[in-house]
């Protein structure tokens, strides 16, 4: 009886106690409070990006911790500290630009004169990643249902299939379909006659740098509240349908009317994008494998795929392709 009582007491203390006080949500709190386009990396406060107690040792982190008494697990305090640092114009790296102003500008307040701390793609976890506001969840639930019905129908027609094996197959098929259905796998293999790359985006409207290659990025983001890009599009190896993954190892060079050069590297889906302002009209060059080709006329709109459709619109010659 005493054992049972002890067990129950321990269970009560350990299993049903209060919430934790870690700081995993601090990057998102900074992003939201300062209206940043991306959450800052752990390396903003934790030296080398290694988290844990005793690791808040960067200039910015040390200032927040020692001067403003920021502790872990308190997002409300964090927002208050950010406000105070802004008011006090704290400049941890002494480069003349305040820490908060640097964060908003996308530079590192720990490195004098710059060092980009934001701008990398947001790291997200889980199978159901963020969906742009107003968009329906991926329709993979329907695919899951159809797959399951098909597997069961085939299995029911098989004669001599041992009961346990059949039940197991059902369970395995259901589990595999469920994993696919909830969208962990946002890129699928397809035959080369569908996509020359052999890969297609199947993540629906799940927010991802790889999403919907070939679609008019800026138009869609504007309509659905996605990140604001000034220039975005997809580089393909050849004329290719929407959602096929494009070419990698390529980049776009944008030369603004003021002569400033912006180079954007295509990601593994062939997508390229930038949030930086470019003075119009600008010249565009596609670079890959030591070769390059220049777009015939200067441009004023950055939504490349709105004209560079598979067939080409507004006199564009189809896709943005490799030189």
């Amino acid at each position: 009886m005493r054992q049972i009582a002890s067990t129950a007491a321990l269970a009560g203390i350990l299993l049903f106690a209060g919430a934790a006080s870690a700081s995993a949500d601090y990057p998102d709190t900074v992003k939201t409070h300062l209206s940043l386009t991306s959450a800052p990396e752990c390396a903003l406060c934790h030296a080398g990006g290694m988290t844990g107690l005793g690791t808040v040792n960067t200039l910015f982190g040390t200032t927040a911790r020692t001067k403003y008494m920021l502790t872990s697990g308190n997002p409300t305090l964090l927002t208050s500290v950010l406000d105070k640092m802004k008011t006090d114009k704290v400049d941890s790296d002494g480069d003349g630009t305040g820490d908060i102003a640097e964060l908003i500008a996308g530079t590192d307040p720990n490195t004098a004169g710059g060092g980009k701390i934001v701008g990398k793609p947001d790291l997200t976890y889980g199978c159901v990643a963020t969906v742009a506001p107003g968009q329906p969840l991926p329709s993979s639930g329907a695919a899951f249902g159809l797959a399951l019905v098909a597997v069961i129908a085939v299995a029911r027609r098989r004669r001599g299939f041992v009961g346990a094996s059949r039940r197991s197959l059902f369970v395995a098929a259901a589990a595999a379909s469920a994993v696919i259905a909830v969208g962990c796998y946002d890129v699928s293999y397809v035959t080369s006659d569908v996509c020359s790359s052999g890969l297609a985006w199947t993540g629906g409207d799940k927010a991802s740098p790889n999403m919907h290659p070939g679609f008019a990025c800026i138009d869609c983001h504007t309509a659905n509240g996605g990140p604001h890009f000034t220039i975005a599009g997809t580089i393909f190896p050849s004329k290719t349908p929407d959602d096929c993954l494009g070419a990698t190892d390529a980049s776009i060079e944008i030369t603004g009317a003021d002569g400033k050069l912006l180079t954007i590297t295509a990601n593994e889906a062939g997508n390229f994008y930038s949030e930086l302002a470019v003075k119009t009209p600008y010249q565009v060059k596609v670079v890959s494998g030591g070769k390059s080709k220049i777009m015939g006329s200067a441009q004023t709109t950055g939504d490349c795929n709105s004209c560079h459709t598979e067939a080409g619109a507004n006199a564009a010659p189809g896709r943005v392709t490799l030189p």
Partner: protein
Amino acid sequence: MLAPRTTQHVRLLSALLGLIAFAVLSLATSRADAYPWMIRHEYTGCAICHGDPTGGGVLTPYGRAQGDLLLRTRYSSPKPGEEAGDPSKTAGFLWGAFEPPDWLLLGGSFRGATLVTKAAGTPADVRYILMQADLRAMIRPSFFRAGGAIGFAHEGALPAAVTSNTANNVVSREHWAGVAFKDDQFLLRAGRMNLPFGIRNIDHTLWVRKSTRTDINDSQEHGVSFAYNGDTVRGEVMGILGNFQVHPDAYRERGAVGYLEYTISPRYTAGLNGLFTSALLDRTSGTTLKRGSAGIFGRGSPTLPLVLMAEADMLINAPAATSISLGMVGMLQADYEPKQGIHVLATGEVRVDTSGTSAGGWLGAAWFFLPHVDARFDGIVQSVASAGGTSTLVTSFLGQLHFFL
């Protein structure tokens, strides 16, 4: 450019490697599972008790029986009608309330903890953590094998999350399917699996697990693996395709990992392991990731109450072509079981990396005091090196209560 290594680092490295070599060679030292100290009962391999050939997770009927007979404290002599070697009726799934068919293994694990951490110069941090709340299943008709787990994580375990919240996520640490050959000597499978590397124990915050990113909390990866489980040699090699529960793809590590273990005698084993992965972006630092680990591990039980376990791994990080940093991580753990079900654990660990040398000591006790229930308490003192050559003394107390179904 090699990271600067001080004379002190070299001395510590030498000392630790010597310690490991001693444990492996002179104690004539194996591969591990979630309770690697079961080697004291001459269980050098894992597959006889666990659905996963490399250990951990759902238990086989034999594993449940041995857990009841050898793991927990037994308070009385066999009741009338029971023989000394028979497991009690509560050994089965749900304390014996339900007996699944032979082809189906079911299980679950619930672990709650109180963690008090005090770093020098900061107030104590008290956290109540639901460390694990997982339901597990494995099916194994004929040659087909498939296993998976679904659970809830109140905090952390994000790389295993199925949902996308910052906390309170549904998690799936494992889900895989495969085929077994030759009475389960060989298993070829694909899916999300624990990485076959080092000593697989429940102490997932040990530096040997954290720094090599091979713990069983949330370091699983999707991939394809091939396991061999022979009488004297065991091994598993896995091609890592990335963690598809992490987005975008740039943050997914790809590479290979594996181990090979040899049974020297019924209570001594020794093994080798290796890992290399790369990713466009490291989830932790945000820089390009190219990392590798290679090392040795071993277990030995010189007398029934005592088990010694050791592991040492070299850490190689090469985020850029011109920048290579070397480090190492190691641990030596002693498990002493004075009375069946009661364990006293002493652990020493060391980590040498670009921040400097960190060292830690654990002293703990565990008691498997009821069928399917155990409690564990640990006191941990660590000197944690950080960039700039400073060290922080961190003291922790961890109390855990664990139920399994």
